[in-house]
């Protein structure tokens, strides 16, 4: 009886190890696994962030390469926000960072930057706009919180045009109406097709529109 008990208990350590495994399996469904974001860290970095869980690397080093996989659940599970919004927002920093890097490389002078985002969902548009403004200031650009606006008649015309024509024409109108001057530059971030999740961007300087991506 005792031998049987010992034999039954022998696989227990192996199962205990599987409890913390982020991959789908006995203790975790595929859906739960998809909602995890994992990052591989060196043992030293993992010890700094999780000193209670990860021991300090041996002072004399180790022959074996040791690292840690830090996983945390997404704050909002996949499916809780509309798929397009989630795709844009979950990589906002990286997407907007790429755009502002390209834009600030093209216009390097002492200019005042204005930013606006064109996205069907106003709350998400505001997030994109704020991210771009903040990123530009952190890159050392002079940024204004004022959003250039056109007259109602201009907007009525622009509304009917396809994006490829509307944005260049809007840029011309900004300049013609004096909303933007020689010392201003306007960065527009938008999605062109409502079905896509890729952010596009254009730069309006001296009445000339340039697509960045």
């Amino acid at each position, binding site marked *: 009886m*005792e031998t049987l008990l010992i034999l039954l208990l022998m696989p227990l350590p192996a199962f205990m190890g599987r409890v913390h495994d982020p991959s789908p399996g006995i203790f975790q469904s595929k859906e739960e696994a998809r909602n*995890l*974001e994992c*990052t591989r860290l060196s043992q030293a970095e993992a010890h*700094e*962030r*999780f*000193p*209670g*869980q*990860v*021991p*300090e690397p041996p002072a004399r080093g180790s022959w074996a390469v040791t690292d840690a996989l*830090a*996983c*945390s*659940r*997404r*704050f*909002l*599970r996949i499916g*809780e*926000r509309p798929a397009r*919004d989630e795709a844009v*927002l*979950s*990589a*906002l*920093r990286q997407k907007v960072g790429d755009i502002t890097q390209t834009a600030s490389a093209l216009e390097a002078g002492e200019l*005042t930057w204005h930013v606006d985002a064109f996205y069907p*969902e106003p*709350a*998400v548009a*505001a*997030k994109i706009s*704020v*991210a771009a*403004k*903040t*990123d530009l*200031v*952190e890159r050392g650009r*002079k*940024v*204004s*919180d*004022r959003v250039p606006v056109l007259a109602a008649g201009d907007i009525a015309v622009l509304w009917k045009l396809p994006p490829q024509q509307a944005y260049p024409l809007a840029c011309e109108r900004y300049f013609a109406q004096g909303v933007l001057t020689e010392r201003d530059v306007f960065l527009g971030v938008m999605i062109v097709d409502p079905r896509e999740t890729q952010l596009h961007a254009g730069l309006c300087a001296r009445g000339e529109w340039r697509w960045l991506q």
Partner: protein
Amino acid sequence: MRPAFLSLILALLPAAVVAEESPLTDAQRAQLETLRGEIAAQIQLQAYDLLDELVFGWTEQPVFALETPLVLADVSVPVGFGSGMQALIENHFASLIVKNPRTRVALTHCPQCTSVVVHSGATGTIVSRGVDEPEALSKAGTLSGSRHAIFLDFEIEGAALVLRARITSLEPALPIIYAKTLSTSTSSPALLRTGDRLKSAAEARQEYVNALQGRSLYQVPIRIGVRTYATGSGQVRAAPMPWLQAGVEGSLTQARAWTGSFLVGFSWTPQLHTAWMAQGRLSRLISGTTSSLTGPDLYAFVGGSVISIHGPAALAFQDQVPDLDDLLALLTGGGPDATFGALQLGLDLRVKNRIGVGVYLESLPALNNAPAIGDYLDIGILQFHSLGVEVTFCF
């Protein structure tokens, strides 16, 4: 009749479908609300952490040279979250500013700044938030002395929470004079700093490490336990013995994966026995690789001890049935003695290495043939004669 019946069925079908769907939708909504509440509790701590980091940065490198009035113009929470979180963030931010005058920022009240204002001028009529039309506020004299507004924007990007803070000067051009992006590190728990003694994330983390390492490698355990002995084949039965032990316990590293201890113990029962013990143990952490500050730790241990018993109770710990000579010796004052060795195998559950509860089996190899001592477990090479439970307090 039949078309009328079909029409009735078709008319009632949508209602039936709705009736079928409604409870499910409500249940889903309730589950979603529960989940949201649970997540918001975590997000709230992470958001506090980011605000702490922002304000700590201002105490180290103030944005303004002199104390400057500042309007909290807008707090934007992640898309999908409600105004409850917004209120918590506003309160925490205000609390941090009040507790940290070194930021050189004074929060001012400006209800017109955040509300929608209508301004008619030569260029037309503009409807906007006050902070977006500062000249309108200025003309109305409602800026309350503040010339700057702060906007706090939180957004969830995967498993990270990102704070984007910007301060705008309330002049017609609305220049942004300060902007900062802060993000929670992947998976790192919130540092939970106190608002009145803010410190950097690195310092707070170091403090936590110091708290971990502050535990001495040596502890003084005091242990109270009871041993019971299995009934043997003889007429005499060994009575349970209470023990009080004290000694020293040490570990090689702060992980406390391996610990060793040496304790001496004393046991006394009126009219029955006086006993001494010296015991050594080697323990291995089996519930993880390092001991936890927040959860219990489970150790498995092996140990050895030498026990010496004096008094009538020692008669049970002999290889023979007590005879008349033993009883005569007892009556004449020359009480029996028993000294034997023991091997232990057990489990010890510790909480923060301060309090522990243990259970163990003990083998007395020298007493395998003692008629008064039986065994609880026989695994062939070892017979476990004694079962003990104990509570340990570490100092």
